[in-house]
């Protein structure tokens, strides 16, 4: 055999036999692509598209303006009009509550639609691949819709040895608190479903009810491995609630209120005209509280590195093994709903939700800033998932009881010292 040269094709060759484009080989070696990505036209155009999308979104947000202050006048105007038509007052209140409940229901649904797609794209790009590209014209954006339709149409299988009623109720008990918990959470200035004065307590209390659903799911599968998995999951969820709540206590101490939108509003203003008065910038206390809250939230939502309950490897099957179709979709939905909740809470408690980071960026409305901060934190959740390996179960509990909880308690003490220092 004579030595032949590897001739990389300089132009893509069109294969007339089957009508497809043949690509030359040397374009896909990472060494060529990664040395100078900016020399590739596809990379430049991708970056331009991304920049265009972001600036377009910012311009749209600026044009729309503040949404919160517009709601109350609208409500009063509509209410007066209805009263003038002779509709009784209590009926107007009921209709308004129903409208708010319907919008509240939409929050986790829209979130799931977007978050699942975003997670798949982020995980793909972290892994040097593309993710959904096909469904939907732009980067597979309708992939989640297709998956949702698929899950809807799947057969609902209930194992023989399962308790049918509990099997049916478990996803319900998990999902309903996941929807209700968004009620006192602000989405912008005055953009809130129910401005509760005990908002913080309400959020953590209602969030805790979902743990019951997890135990029910494990028990109702009629399978000892799922039961073990469910109990383990419940133990993890309950134990990580403690540092999570204790991490928020310094914030509550500093702000002096449990009302979440009031806490967010407390962080308005700038030190020296430059540094925002966000709780994360408070010396030591703010940073430690944020980190503890972040880690505990990742554990609460069963995300890697704390995803033992739903890990497919390891011997013990997760608590949601025996669920298929829409019931599985509800578990999935509740996980993403809690991720969104954690991000919203972090934005409100630590990042002064709604307040721009610099005074001159104030042209964007508060809901846009809130959204930006929430999405950045959600990106952190996704980022952690695809970087870290998984904790072993006993090490997970050790981490909580021997590290996070003492640190969060010490943080409360430090917050006391800080308050004494300030006043």
């Amino acid at each position, binding site marked *: 055999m004579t*030595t032949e040269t590897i001739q990389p094709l300089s132009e893509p060759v069109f294969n007339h036999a089957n009508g497809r484009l043949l690509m030359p080989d040397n374009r896909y070696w990472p060494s060529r692509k990664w040395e100078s990505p900016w020399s590739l036209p596809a990379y430049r155009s991708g970056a331009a598209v991304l920049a265009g999308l972001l600036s377009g979104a910012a311009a749209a947000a600026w044009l729309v303006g503040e949404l919160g202050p517009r709601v109350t006048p609208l409500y009063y105007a509509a209410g007066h009009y209805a009263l003038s038509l002779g509709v009784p007052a209590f009926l107007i209140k009921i209709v308004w509550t129903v409208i708010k409940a319907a919008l509240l229901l939409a929050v986790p649904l829209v979130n799931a639609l977007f978050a699942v797609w975003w997670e798949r794209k982020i995980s793909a790009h972290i892994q*040097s691949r593309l993710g959904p590209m096909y469904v939907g014209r732009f980067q597979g954006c309708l992939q989640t819709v297709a998956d949702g339709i698929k899950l809807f149409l799947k057969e609902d299988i209930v194992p023989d040895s399962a308790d049918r009623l509990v099997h049916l109720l478990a996803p319900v008990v998990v999902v309903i608190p996941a929807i209700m918990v968004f009620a006192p959470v602000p989405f912008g200035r005055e953009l809130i479903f129910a401005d509760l004065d005990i908002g913080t307590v309400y959020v953590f209390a209602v969030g805790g009810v979902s743990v019951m659903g997890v135990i029910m799911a494990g028990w109702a599968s009629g399978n000892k491995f799922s039961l073990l998995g469910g109990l383990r999951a419940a133990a993890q969820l309950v134990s990580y609630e403690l540092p999570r709540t204790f991490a928020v206590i310094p914030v509550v101490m500093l702000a002096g209120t449990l009302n979440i939108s009031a806490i967010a509003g407390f962080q308005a203003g700038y030190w020296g005209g430059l540094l925002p008065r966000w709780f994360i910038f408070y010396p030591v206390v703010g940073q430690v509280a944020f980190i503890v809250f972040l880690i505990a939230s990742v554990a609460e939502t069963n995300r890697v*590195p704390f995803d033992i309950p739903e890990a497919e490897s390891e*011997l013990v099957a997760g608590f949601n093994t025996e669920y298929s179709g829409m019931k599985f979709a509800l578990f999935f939905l509740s996980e993403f709903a809690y991720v969104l909740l954690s991000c919203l809470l972090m934005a409100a408690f630590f990042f002064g939700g709604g307040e721009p980071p610099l005074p001159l960026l104030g042209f964007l409305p508060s809901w846009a800033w809130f959204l930006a901060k929430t999405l950045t934190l959600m990106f952190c959740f996704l980022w952690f998932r695809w*970087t*870290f390996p998984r904790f072993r179960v006993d090490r997970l509990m050790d981490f909580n009881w021997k590290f996070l909880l003492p640190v969060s308690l010490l943080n409360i003490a430090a917050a006391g010292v800080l308050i004494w220092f300030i006043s």
Partner: protein
Amino acid sequence: MTDTISTALKTGQMFINFGPQHPSTHGVLRIALTVEGEVVVKADPDVGYLHRGMEKLFEARTYSQALILTDRLDYVSAMSNNLAYCLAVERLAGIQAPLRAQYLRVLTAELNRIASHLVFFGTFSVDMGAFTPFLYAFREREMILDLFEMLCGGRLLYSYIRVGGVNADLPAGWTEKCREFITFFKPRLKDYDTLLSFNPIFRDRTVNVGRISASQAISWGLSGPNLRASGPDYDVRKAEPYCVYDKLDFKVPVAQAGDCWNRYYCRMLEMGQSVEIALQCLDALAAADLVPGEIMAKGVPKMLKPPAGAAYAHIEASRGDLGFYAVADGSLNPYRMHVRGPSFLNVAILQEILTGCKIADVVAVLGSLDIVLGEVDR
């Protein structure tokens, strides 16, 4: 008091099949575990699910046909299998491969070692729950597979190393691509260290897990990085050099602790050393004194008929000490060809190591031994 408690609680042992189908796949291996609570009391590896009767198949084929069967033993690093087989048959027939062919053999074997350790790295990290390093490993491995495709036409199963030399010489442009790959790969090793090796969660799961002492390792017949991570400094490339390893300058990583992390890290360091060996081979091949094209020993007949006798040749494959014992009876087919598969001996130590481990550690220990079922079951 304790008696009443233990009888009242009715604890018992549970039998679990870490069955032939399981998510942390390393092939079809079944481990019959008896657990008490969370702790493994008895572990029984059950092999044979991938047995294809290879040693019998060898006897029905000529020496050059049997070569392609050897690819399929440790299919992740096929070049090493070819190399061991060819060394054994060459010893039988009294053939000596030319120097250029030997450098090519070493170069491809070391590149294959890198590819095989990349598979180990990827699958071990998936076992630990980190999915990203798996894709990084396969991105690098894809480049090695492309290099092999340019060289011999195969991406997984090569049949490149032949009795008497190698099959084909380097095509023009191959050395540049190989150097390009090496330049790309060296910083990636540091990336893997940052991403996985020193990650506190990963270390938490693998340090002090599955400790194998040096005497245990030697008495159970371990070889390769499994042995060297426990202390004994035995590498066939240094102890009984074959091909041109005595001319090359490289180090062999040895550790003392013998836990999962040390076995993992020995392999990572070995990848770095393989890169050094590959660079030295490339430099030697580019030197003027090795005539291009002299890749096959002169006078090797097409239908090889070695004289009656027996020979054993062993090499340091990616998994450990791979040996071929060839017995010829003067005919076209080998009379007996026995494979000393390192994974077969490595998997036996699970019986001793897994007792006392937690269930969650079974996956870590199994992954760190890096077995390939093709070699275990043949």
